[in-house]
């Protein structure tokens, strides 16, 4: 299980190539890549704040529980923080399992968790100023599906 926080842009393709190589007993790999949207120019950049020493520990705790729950062979979570430009990847989640249902559900659960419960604070900067993005009611409901 690997959790990485980074302030540098990353290439999801490189991460998937590494993650899926040499897996003779893994039948299914699912990835999720979250990308910063420009929203037709309404978002010029995202600012993501993390709490080092807390954010990573919390995500590792959840990733570890998800790995056990779905009998995953491997999990990788890479999450940007700092300044992020539209079109750049914010988050990458990969899950490896014997069968597809487990890999899909685990990735889905991890993303629901990251969206509404992971210790990040997200601010959108646009032509009309900045605003904090907090989880929507839908995000909260999505995360509850797995409790």
């Amino acid at each position, binding site marked *: 299980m690997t959790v990485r926080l980074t302030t540098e842009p990353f290439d999801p393709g490189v991460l998937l190539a590494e993650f899926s190589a040499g897996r003779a007993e893994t039948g299914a790999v699912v990835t999720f890549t*979250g990308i910063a949207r420009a929203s037709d120019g309404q978002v010029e950049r995202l600012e*993501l*704040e993390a*709490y080092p*020493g*807390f954010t990573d*520990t919390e995500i590792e705790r959840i990733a570890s529980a998800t790995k056990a729950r779905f009998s995953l062979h491997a999990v990788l979570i890479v*999450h940007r923080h700092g300044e992020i430009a539209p079109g750049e990847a*914010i*988050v990458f989640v990969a899950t490896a399992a014997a069968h597809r249902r487990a890999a899909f559900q685990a990735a889905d659960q991890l*993303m629901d968790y*990251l*969206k*509404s*419960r*992971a*210790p*990040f*604070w*997200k601010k959108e900067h646009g032509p009309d100023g900045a605003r*904090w*993005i*907090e*989880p929507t009611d839908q*995000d909260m409901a999505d995360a509850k599906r797995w409790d």
Partner: protein
Amino acid sequence: MFGRLADVAGWRERSLAETPATLFALRALLSEESPALGAALAGKGVQVAVAKAIVRGDVALAAGVEVAFLAPMSGG
């Protein structure tokens, strides 16, 4: 102070010369300085971490311990 709480406070990080004995005492101190911040800290979805562990309700604070007030979180 994380997320919008830092905007309300006007600061992100501060060291106090004397650590209040409990979390509730710290909240009272911050509210006294800024009622707006006090209200924001009591707002919906705000959590508190003491020494990088989430706590609920009141707890004793060791001298010099790190206390973080966390606005509603959103990653991904």
